């Protein structure tokens, strides 16, 4: 309950133009060359396919980079965590607050991107609104994952490793920019292991208006992995900071 006291959003100025540029460049530019793509047995325009992928990427990036770089800077360089745990707040409060804040950023970015994408007529309402609660859940998972890396990386340079090994493969191979079916078999297997695959599947389904029981899989997967990452993040942070 102390957690809502976190106040990092005072300088919240989102670089939101980036996804719009992607949409114009890839959707408009490449979409013209590609034409329609096949997804879940139906043909959709490339820009319509891409838009939910960009929302998913935004949800991941905003959560995971918040707890990677944002939290690391506050913990390591600004010593903010030390300052806060000298007050009645505990380290657990701080970590939970950071993760919740990462998830909140995910929801904000999803909502803002949806405004742009809806303006292009690429969202099916009301189903698409399910993106918002789901992006909080997914944001929690990614923020908790980022916090795990923050807890184990000795310096900020070593973030290159998890970014190269985890974040980048997710960015490219989670059905975000092209349908998984077009990938070779091994890459499809890889995609199945990537958390963002489930987020992008959920987001694209509801953006296309396809709600239904097939959505429980991604929800449960995300909740389960999120729970594991959450407890792991707390344990690793305790190990790093409570000395």
């Amino acid at each position: 309950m102390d957690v809502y006291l976190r106040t990092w959003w005072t300088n919240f100025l989102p670089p939101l133009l980036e996804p719009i540029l992607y949409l114009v460049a890839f959707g408009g530019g490449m979409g013209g060359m590609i034409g329609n793509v096949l997804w879940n047995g139906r043909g959709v325009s490339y820009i319509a396919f891409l838009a939910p992928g960009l929302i998913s990427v935004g949800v991941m990036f905003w959560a995971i980079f918040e707890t990677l770089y944002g939290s690391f800077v506050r913990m390591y360089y600004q010593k903010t965590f030390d300052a806060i745990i000298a007050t009645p707040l505990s380290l657990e409060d701080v970590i939970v607050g950071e993760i919740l804040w990462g998830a909140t950023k995910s929801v904000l970015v999803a909502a803002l991107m949806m405004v742009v994408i809806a303006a292009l007529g690429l969202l099916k309402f009301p189903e698409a609104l399910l993106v918002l609660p789901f992006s909080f859940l997914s944001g929690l998972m990614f923020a908790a994952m980022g916090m795990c890396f923050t807890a184990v990386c000795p310096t900020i340079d070593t973030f290159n490793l998890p970014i190269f090994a985890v974040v980048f493969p997710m960015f490219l191979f989670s059905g975000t920019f092209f349908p998984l079916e077009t990938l070779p078999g091994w890459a499809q297997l890889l995609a199945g292991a990537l958390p963002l695959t489930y987020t992008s599947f959920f987001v694209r389904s509801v953006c296309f208006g396809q709600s239904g029981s097939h959505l429980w899989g991604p929800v449960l997967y995300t909740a389960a992995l999120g729970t594991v990452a959450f407890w792991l993040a707390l344990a690793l942070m305790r190990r790093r900071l409570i000395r």
Partner: protein
Amino acid sequence: MSGNQIPVIETVSVVKRFGELVAVDGVSLAVPQGECFGLLGPNGAGKTSTVRMIQGVSPVTSGTIRVLGMNVAEQGRKVKALVGVCPQEDNLDPDFSVHHNLIVFSRYFGIRRREAQARADELLAFLQLSDRKATPIRELSGGMKRRLILARALINDPRLLLLDEPTTGLDPQGRHSIWQRVRALKKNGTTILLTTHYMEEAAQLCDRLVIMDRGRIIAEGPPAELVTQHVTRDVIEVWGYEQALLEFVREKGWQSEVLADRIFIYSNQGDEDYRELTAAFGMNQCLLRRGNLEDVFLKLTGRELRE
């Protein structure tokens, strides 16, 4: 002096281990209400570890710590609500202004907005930062930052104030300004635990102190008593000396300590000895002074460098 008999800080046989290293090795101390208590010692003596344990952010390996009668291990949140901490490192939030740093911090204590505003204004005035209210942290001088950290430590009107090397790196003005505030707080009855490397600071501020070395307390008492107990009343320092002077000191049978470039002569009748010495060798390389806490410190912890 009446009423409250529970010590503000009470530690019993506190031990802190980091793997093989024993940072704190059985420290027991009691600090009564209203006292300014000093924790002195060379680098690695275990001062900061002790403070962090008292603060409740670092668990003890064994032993117990009570603050205001509450066990820190069990009632950490309650203890932390009543304690103000001025850490060694600057951990102000660089994203915020001077005033906003205090307001943000007050929220962690659950202080109401209006009360926090009033308290922040009061503290900024107390620490002569009122005209810097809106200044971003990165534009503050080192001295102003330290004063703001002290203000921040006072935002919850603490019963116990922990000052971990509050004046390290400050110029003399900055240092005296902090000392003056600490004395004012003392006068108000705030209990203070101070760690420092500056013996003058300890002598000026502390009612009582301990000297720690290698995790243990090796001396305890009021600063003046420690001086009379462990060193002589007077000390004569001689630098750039020649062999003849050394022999003169030996012949006299004076208690002395010979370093590469300096001799310390310890005496309870410094005036006389000084007169004799300067009559024979001149006075431009001799200094007569009172024994002080630094002499005690160096005598007890040795002169070799730590770390």
